[in-house]
């Protein structure tokens, strides 16, 4: 395997129970169910899709692999290992292999097996360490279980350990989040993702808010909470390298999510599974969202994956430039002018005028040819981005 780097993503859309805030595509599943019915069908189809794209995998250097979902950790370890080895026959720690895990679906044993199979990064979906919040969110685990899972992961050999948290929750004060984070920090994770809650329509949580049973904090309160969290984490030695992501260590932290950075650096990635998105040669395509369609199309004779949607921003045009710039600006590295100017020679001059205007309005920083968003504006970044459109 050689050639240009490629990030690979696999989607496992099964969960024990749907959380109250989730609007993702997911289906009921369990470790037992993996050997029968829908899950089995899906996994079979997924394997076939991997086989289909083998030529692509062979022509590129797989730089990162990411198992996301749903709850990938629902799958038996051998299934996960098999899938991984089809993509990366010889995993080594030079290639980041991430598994998303939900506390309550892993054990010390399973985690150890996974580590041995080649998984070297774990992203644990914790969301909160307060029982009332966990209950409101509909999580299947307790705070204690979450902490235990993290300890087990470390014991199993995962030194690259991330935790996900939510804030801006109904009834959550700034202090509540800080307490959760302080507890989290005591477990010494190497990475934290901190997401502001975005209430999606038709979720139980949205309905609870709409009916008045729960009420959201104000924008000001959430902004204050974010600020406090950033200060806490930076004070504890984390690099705030993307709007919602923090990695331990001096910048540039070795614990940044390499896979996600591919997205923010406008790199190429291959998405496998239901609803997965690929971005190759300036062409973005998304697999079907329909389980039936996906399973059926991955019949033994299939020659191609059923695509739901595709779009092309074009490799050199203004649309692509805008997208790329905006993605870069989500990170603390921003983008290097010379780099974009070289790759988008026609569009960049006009784009630069926009950058200049933003600069004059104090909405963007520029240092030595590198443009980035002032961290104080991360939480209103959309306002800057839309001025670039």
């Amino acid at each position, binding site marked *: 395997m050689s050639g240009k780097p490629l990030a690979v*993503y696999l989607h496992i859309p099964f969960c024990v129970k749907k959380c109250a805030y989730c609007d993702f595509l997911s289906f009921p599943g369990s470790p037992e169910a993996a050997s029968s019915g829908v899950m089995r069908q899906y996994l079979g189809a997924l394997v076939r899709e991997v086989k289909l794209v083998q030529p692509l995998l062979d022509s590129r250097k797989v730089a990162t692999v990411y198992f996301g979902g749903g709850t990938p950790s629902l799958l038996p370890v051998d299934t996960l290992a098999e899938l991984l080895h089809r993509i990366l026959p010889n995993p080594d720690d030079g290639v980041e292999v991430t598994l998303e895990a939900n506390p309550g679906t892993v054990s010390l044993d399973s985690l150890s097996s996974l580590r041995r199979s080649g998984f070297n990064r774990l992203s644990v979906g914790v969301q909160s360490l307060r029982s009332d919040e966990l209950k409101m969110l509909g999580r299947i685990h307790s705070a204690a279980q979450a902490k235990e899972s993290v300890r087990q992961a470390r014991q199993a050999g995962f030194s690259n350990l991330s935790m996900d948290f939510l804030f801006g929750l109904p009834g959550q004060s700034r202090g509540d989040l800080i307490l959760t984070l302080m507890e989290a920090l005591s477990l010494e994770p190497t990475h934290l993702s901190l*997401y*502001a*809650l*975005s209430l999606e329509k038709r979720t139980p949580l949205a309905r609870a808010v709409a009916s008045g049973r729960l009420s959201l904090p104000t*924008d*000001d309160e*959430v*902004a*204050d909470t974010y600020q406090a969290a950033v200060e806490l984490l930076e004070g504890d030695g984390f690099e705030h390298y993307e*709007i*919602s992501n923090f990695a331990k260590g001096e910048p540039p932290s070795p614990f940044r999510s390499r896979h*996600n950075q591919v*997205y*923010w650096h406008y790199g190429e*990635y291959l*998405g496998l599974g239901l*609803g*997965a*998105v690929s*971005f190759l040669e300036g062409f*973005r395509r*998304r697999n079907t969202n329909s389980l039936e369609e996906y399973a059926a199309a991955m019949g033994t004779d299939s020659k191609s994956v059923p695509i739901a*949607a595709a*779009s092309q921003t074009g490799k050199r045009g203004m649309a692509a430039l805008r*997208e790329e710039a*905006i*993605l870069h600006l*989500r990170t603390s590295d921003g983008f290097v002018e010379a780099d974009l100017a070289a790759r988008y020679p026609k569009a960049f001059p006009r784009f630069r005028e926009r950058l200049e205007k933003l600069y004059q*309005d104090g*909405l963007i920083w520029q240092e030595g040819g590198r443009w980035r968003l002032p961290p104080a504006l*991360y*939480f*209103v*970044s*959309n*306002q800057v*981005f*839309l001025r670039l*459109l």
Partner: protein
Amino acid sequence: MQENIRNFCIVAHIDHGKSTLADRLLEATGLMNERNMQEQVLDSMDLEREKGITIKSHPVRLDYHSQDNRDYIFNLIDTPGHVDFTYEVSRALAACDGALLVVDASQGVEAQTLANAFLAMDLGLDVIPVINKIDLMSANPELTRKEIEETLLIDAAEAILASAKDGTGIKEVLEAIVRRIHPPQGDLLAPLRALIFDSHYDSYKGVIVYVRVVDGSVRVGQMIQMMATGQSFEVMEVGHFRLGLVSQPELKAGEVGYLAATIKSLSETKVGDTITLAERPAEGPLPGFRHVKPMVFCGLYPAVNEKYPELREALQKLSLNDASLIYEPESSPALGFGFRCGFLGLLHMDIVQQRLEREYDQDLVATAPSVNYRVFLRNGVVLEIDNPAKFPQPELIEHIAEPFVKAMIIVPQEYVGPMMELCQNHRGSFGNMEYVEGNRVILTYHLPLAEILLDFYDQLKSGSRGYASLDYDFEEYKPYELVKLDILVNGRPVDALCYILPAEKAYEHARKAVMRLRRSIPRQMFEVIIQGAIGSRVIARETIKAKRKDVLAKCYGGDVTRKMKLLEKQKEGKKRMKQVGNVEIPQEAFLSMVRINREEE
């Protein structure tokens, strides 16, 4: 023969039964039968029917066979009954020789009864009082008779008691028209003099002119001349009105009818003008009548900027058939291009707005009506300004004067207190109080026109349980302590939102305006300061803090396309904003500030 012609109209206060009476007359003279009777036929527009009022008058000829066995021609000219339409009424009266004065026996003499009666008497018409609605339980004919005598100083001993609803007294009315209204007394052999008392535009025939022929006659083929402009036209058609136009070869002295003469536009005819023959012109014109100036203004803007040309066209078409509507282009930074329109009154304004919206399919924004101010500058120049944004700097102004009206309120005694309070709250000064039979009072107050523009009439009615009636007339311009209130956003005055008002109301209004605006401007990337100021003096202030949250928390592979689309939508939303300096203000914010908001006022 002129002897057998009677030209008359029916005047009354609103809802006293004028239209029902007209219907009965039409019925009794055979113009309508059971089959083609449509409720109150003379009111042709939906809007009129809906509001239950008559807007556009048009005449109708009736044939009457009297008790003394003679045939008469009645020309009934219908008139509007609302205070706004005094002008329309006087035009109709000028074509008549007599008037039926209808008074509701349960309401008695009310404001418009007086106004119309005085108009008719001034013009020398024979006035026949008709006491209507005697069928009602609450009717009090005797009291009404007394009121008529006392307030109008006419002999009501021979007032006709009638009920247009059940047909009582109709025969008497018809006979009274014959016996008590004088026939026309023009000279058939003299040069043609015909008074134009109305007109409308017909897409096939051009302008149709409504005339009362006073002297002489006019035939198809003749060349007529407008005495005011000197322009000549060839007569294509003449005739009279039944339910529609009925042509005839000639119109003679004493007759009321119409004339079509390939007149292309209404601007070529002047209502009140005299028509004569080109080859044998009359010496002098007939006395016309006073042209009434519009008293109420408002801004009319298309809800969507781009539709301005359509609004202009709609106003043009509408004004062809409504000579009292005036409009001129104006613009505001907030609303773009629109028109400042002048109306005879609030009802006129309402009707025009509704017609524009319905018949011409316009989506409108109406800005609060304002009046013409007279600004006296220190250097002696006097400016007439109808748009607050056009006011000169305060330092240049010596004083400002606003139009005042004399308002006449007729109300039962027990409501005098609330009525006086109402007037005082609207900067009124007491004029006169006169007691009338039936425990009623005629209250006269001098009020600024600006005070009665929107809700005065409503408050009048609700403060008197509907018993009060109002009539008003322009009086004069009087100076008042008026100021111009500017609304500033981050230091920039927003033209469209400035307002002229009495100094004593400035603070309260400024507070409300600033609060309202604060609620409708979204948070920006910086702090926004909203101020209300008079000249350089800030009297109200609100702050909008900077935006703190507008972020896409998660953005990974699968999200990008969808999230870019969301950003683009946000961007589109921004486009619909108006920029005031660096502050983005949604159209809705302006609308909420300038739109007429009657509930709130």
